[in-house]
């Protein structure tokens, strides 16, 4: 499903080069769950971004769902993301001008899927927010927003879900509820899950833990 081989990422800052990731390799099989952990600045989010095709790497290769990411242009990457990838972010990233329902519908609409509204309503029901379908992000609490984001992430039936600190902005109780929902949806859909977290308790709930420190695997 996801194969990362010897990838490196270097940022140029003036005359200085900053190696953020150095020679990282790992694999995640279909349906497996993995957590990327490490201290702040260790390159966790950068690695997630590269795996999801949000950024370009400088060396090595990443194969996502049989596609070598370095061979795809921006639109090709967008197509992969739309058809095979789901995202959950620490700060929810709902489109503020869209209602909860519309936020969940967008990935399906992009695919040209039929019955997007019906499917989106079913997903909202699954995350327990069917009654908030017409609400905007600003009218929802943090926990509700993240549940909407989860519904959106699963709306295009992704093969793989990338989650960046999915409970980072939530209190413990709400965080645990969202965690539970995430793993339940993941299990039901049979989706591969790669998440970035500081929370070792959350990481321990996954099958693989990828530990980073200073841009290298430890």
């Amino acid at each position: 499903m996801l194969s990362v081989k010897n990838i490196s990422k270097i940022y140029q800052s003036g005359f200085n080069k900053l190696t953020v990731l150095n020679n990282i390799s790992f694999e995640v099989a279909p349906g497996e769950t993995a957590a990327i952990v490490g201290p702040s600045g260790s390159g966790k989010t950068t690695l997630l971004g590269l795996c999801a095709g949000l950024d370009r790497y400088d060396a090595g290769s990443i194969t996502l769902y049989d596609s070598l990411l370095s061979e795809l242009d921006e639109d090709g990457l967008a197509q992969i993301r739309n058809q095979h990838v789901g995202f959950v972010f620490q700060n929810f990233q709902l489109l503020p001008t869209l209602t909860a329902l519309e936020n969940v519908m967008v990935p399906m609409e992009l695919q040209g899927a039929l019955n997007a509204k019906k499917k989106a309503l079913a997903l909202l029901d699954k995350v327990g927010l069917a009654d908030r379908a017409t609400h905007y992000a600003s009218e929802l609490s943090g926990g509700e927003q993240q549940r909407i984001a989860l519904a959106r992430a699963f709306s295009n039936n992704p093969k793989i879900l990338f989650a960046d600190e999915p409970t980072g902005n939530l209190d413990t109780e709400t965080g645990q509820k969202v965690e539970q929902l995430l793993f339940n949806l993941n299990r039901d859909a049979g989706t591969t899950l790669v998440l970035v977290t500081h929370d070792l308790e959350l990481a321990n709930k996954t099958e693989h833990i990828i530990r980073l420190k200073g841009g290298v695997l430890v």
Partner: protein
Amino acid sequence: MNGWWIIKMAWRDSRKNRSRLLFFISSIVLGIAALVAIAAFGKNLKQEIDNQAASLIGADLEISSGKPLTVSAHKLIDSLINLSQSHAEEHQFASMANFIKNGGTRLVQIRALTGAYPFYGALETSPAAAAFTFLDDQKILVDKTLLLQFNAAVGDTVKLGDLNFQIAGSLINTPGKTVISGSVAPTIFMPLSLLEKTGLSQKGSRINYKYYFRFLDNYPVDKLVEHLDDQFEQLSLRTETIASTKENTGRSFTDLTDFLGLVGFIALMLGCLGVSSSIHVYVKEKLPSVAILRCIGARSHQTFLIYLAQIIGISTIGALSGVILGAIVQQVLPWILKDFLPVNVRSDISWSAIVQGILIGLSMSLLFSLIPLLSVRKVSPLYTLRIQSNDRLSISKGDALKNLVYLCIIIFITIFSRFQLNSWYQSIAFVMGISMAFVVLYGTAVLLMKALRQYTPLSWPYVWRQGLANLYRPNNQTVMLIVAIGLGTALIASLFFIQGILLNRVTLSSSKNQPNMVLFDIQSSQKDEVAALIKRSKLPVLQKTPIVTMQLTAINNYTLEDVRKDSTLGFSTRAFGGEIRATYKSTLDPSEKITDGQWIEKSMVGDTAKISLDQSYAKRLKVKVGDRLQFNVQGVVIPTIIGSLREVDWNRMQTNFRVLFPLGVIDNAPQFHVIMTRVPNDRVSADIQQLLVKRFPNISIIDLDLILSVLDSILDKIGFVIKFIGAFSILTGIVVLIAAIMISKYQRIQENVLLRTLGASRRQLFTITGCEYLLLGLLASITGIILASIASFLLAFFIFEASFKPSISVILLLLFGVSGLTLFIGLFNSRSALNQPPLVVLRKEV
């Protein structure tokens, strides 16, 4: 790609921003309104001129001559009389009118008429019958403004020359005449049959002889004129037909509406600049949403198209609003311009003007919006992971497509101005001028921000520093506001300055010791008596000049015929056409300076006369010192050699001449004289005019003070028209300013809430905002005034050849007016941001 989805997303995304988006686009509404109103007005005016051309000229054919007709010319006129259905004759000249009841005198335009002119249209008089009855008796029609000026009424007596006339009616409207032309030289119609008895036709002054003809319907008048063209030219007869009137009048008014259209276009450009700036901030706010869409699989062109669809939508609404407003403004334009128009203009809707307004508005607003909008294509989905604050999202630079858009804008403006100005040279100059103004204002804004960032003293109170810092914070609107307000100020200041230059030019010449009264048409036999009378009235005779009229008949022995046959000779046929008024004297005036050759004071018997030419006249004739010119001085051929060239200061209030003869050549030619004097006040002016007109009825008098007041009122009227259209730029500047404040409102609320949470009082927040807008207004108005001063100086130096001294009162008025208005609008529109409770920001979405 799913176009419907794009539109649906654009609609959804706009949901929470519609009022703001409409506000952005309101900046272009006024510009489009001005363009539509002017274009529709121009079209209606042209239509009316076409419809009313016959009544503008009043006949099918008008033939005029600046001198009495020769035998051959008479023959030609007689043959035309035979061809025509009816005809009329008119002698037109300037003379003094003396209102007997109160002794008032004034220089008027006398139109001595015989026949049923006008054949088309009518002389509008009160009573209406007077237009027909005055020809049969010793009666006249007097311009209504004259009657008002001298408190005269129908039935009163006016003396013209040696004859008393009874006023038959008040002249309300004459075909083809505008209110402005009437105010310069008010008209009196009299019967031609009585002209000789007035004694006015005997004088040497210029009489314009006019013949009007009416032909049968569908008679090919233009073909006839074309057929006789050579004869007309040989006989120095000018012709005017309905078609040529249509063309000439139409052309002058097309020039006027094109110019006004260009002023309106500046308002649109300012508005587009405001739109561009607003969209820039809007797009920056939208970047996180774009990144999310990209993250969940939207392609870059899809996200771009979502926002493009929004812009097209709001631009269409803006353009339509502009069109509606334009249609309303169009109703007012005929009233604003009424004094300049020879015809009544209707206010019909012009669909072509509406389509043109929509297309220009949409294209301009789209082009200007594309500059910030193109950045949407470059938004990386990585922003969803990396950036938490949209302030840090940068908009990419150095995009080839963006450069193409800049190029398109320049091409669009150049082509538009080319159509307005009908000259590539002028349109490029216009684009360069506007670009220069943009660059100067842009540079000023950038320098201000840099200077504030580096040099704001830390010792200054916090509220000042914070207010000034607002001018260079992220998402600031400093550049756009300085450009918009500065350009608007420059436009208005230029109008004031140019009006000042024109008035100064005349006012200066009326300063102390300069003549302010000109007496002309004085016969040789009268000149000494007139001078004596002036002296007896304790007034000075400042200048006494003989004037001899003549025509140029050959340049270096080439006649008009030779020049017409051989274009390689390099002389213009027009050099031979007009009447030249020359003088003779032995010494030059202080206003004249020899630049080439030598001035000969007296010509000896048998010598070829060595004359002196004004150097710019010599340049037009393409002649130099040593070349030979031959003149026809009222039937006598006089060969001359150009002995010298002179630089003449035409700005002085005195008689100046293009051709100057030495003594001993034309001294005995038929001539008339001009005497100049200076009167200390209106009372003395009226007294001496009355005295002179009574004693010498043929003499015409120009009162410079009267000319000045007429000029002042004309400039006021012209200024009002231009200011009316220019006001669209100022109003656009205000809308742009309000839009800029609205756009940064949320950011301001956040800042103010934070400051209030930290303990800032409302007064302190007020001072911070006030500092920001006051500096913005001051700097924009100062830069605008400087730009206007430079432009006015260049105009004064190169075009008007006058000195330019900007009026301090105008400068102060604009400086305080514009800065005060900016400050007021800034504070007024920020009041909700100043009054927000701190809690509101916690729930506020981006």
